[in-house]
């Protein structure tokens, strides 16, 4: 065995050096020095790796998971998708009736289709919404994590003030509608969970309402992209709109 092969076998796993290598090193000080140096580095690596410890609060949160999951009334997946298709038909009807009543020029077919995709996306996250509404999802994202997620859609919240009374229980970068990068926050309000989505583009150029038998919300075109606020049908979102619209900043 040449020295390169010896080094390779030692350095690939210094904690488990096989007997053949140890025997070779026993009669060769240079090879023994290779082993010693490798073990020396490894002990420093282990020391560095073990230097951090997880907070106790994390363990407590992990141990709560079974209880949260068991207490969650989760519809079977098949039922969720059935709900969606039924909901999509209702959405089209609601938009059409709304336009007829208002007499205004309404959203284009593409914009309506986009609204449907937003609603579909919400059903994918229904488990989280249900868990938050049931009080079973209590985690709270801090501003650094929130803005990491918001960066996916080229946006950020300049101040965390808004979230002091409305904790963010869910934050995820996502693709609501390919190819638009989106960020999805679910905040807990006095009225229950509300979805805040931002899109790094403007698939919708005029404001219009979306909704179905469960959800109700609005798509708001802004200078940097689209802001979408959607809650359960019985929620009044008027009070939240200004807060989110005013504090949202577009960074690209």
């Amino acid at each position, binding site marked *: 065995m040449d020295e390169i092969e010896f080094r390779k076998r030692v*350095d690939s796993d210094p904690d488990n050096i096989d007997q053949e290598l140890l025997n070779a090193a026993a009669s060769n000080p240079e090879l023994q020095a290779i082993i010693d140096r490798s073990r*020396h580095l490894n002990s420093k*690596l282990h020391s560095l790796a073990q*230097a*951090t410890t997880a907070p106790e609060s994390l*363990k407590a949160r*992990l141990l709560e998971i079974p209880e949260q999951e068991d207490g969650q009334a989760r519809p079977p997946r098949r039922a969720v998708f059935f709900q969606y298709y039924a909901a999509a038909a209702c959405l089209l009807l609601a938009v059409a009736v709304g336009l007829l009543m208002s007499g205004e020029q309404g959203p284009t077919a593409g914009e309506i289709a986009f609204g449907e995709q937003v609603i579909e996306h919400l059903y994918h996250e229904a488990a989280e919404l249900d868990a938050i509404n049931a009080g079973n999802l209590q985690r709270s994202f801090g501003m650094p994590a929130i803005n990491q997620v918001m960066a996916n859609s080229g946006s950020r919240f300049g101040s965390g003030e808004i979230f002091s009374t409305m904790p963010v229980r869910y934050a995820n970068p996502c693709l609501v509608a390919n190819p638009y990068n989106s960020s999805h926050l679910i905040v807990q309000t006095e009225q229950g969970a509300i979805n805040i989505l931002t899109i790094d583009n403007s698939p919708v150029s005029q404001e219009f309402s979306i909704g179905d038998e469960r959800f109700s919300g609005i798509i708001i075109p802004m200078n940097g992209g689209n802001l979408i606020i959607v809650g359960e049908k019985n929620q009044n979102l008027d009070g939240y709109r200004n807060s989110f619209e005013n504090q949202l900043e577009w960074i690209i």
Partner: protein
Amino acid sequence: MSDSPVLHGSNKRQRYESLVDQLYQDVFRYALWVCKNQPMAEDLVQETFLRAWRSLDSLENDKAAKAWLFTILRRENARQYERYRPELVDIEGQSIADAGDQEPDQRMERQLLLSAIKRLDQEYREPLLLQVIGGFSGKEIAEIMDLNNNTVMTRLFRARSKLKQDFGVDAEEVD
């Protein structure tokens, strides 16, 4: 093989609690290296254990529990963040290096080692961290990373060679 947890208890809840008790520290440490940010690491660990709870019945061999959890974490990280995550300001690196009571020389040494690890290409850093934090064998790392064993061993060798070079171990006297 890595230290294998013994999942105590006969029902799912007890097995899960045993899993958390024995492995959450290692899972968190790995998550912190992956995320470089404590809040995100905690969320990633939470998602990992949530998915573990949901599919705990599929874990037939307790000895594979640790590798199973790390695999879930890597997939969850890729799913949630990897494609989208902007370059993070590494605020946790400092705290990793500063952790514990240390003399200034030791603190400096840790910071140098930390910097050297960060400078490794991801393909070398990842198996190294799985070995050092997870205690996994080359074979286990190969399974977690979906690589063959020889590739893993070569990457581990190159990772340590680069660290020695950057960290100056080959030049120094060993105690």
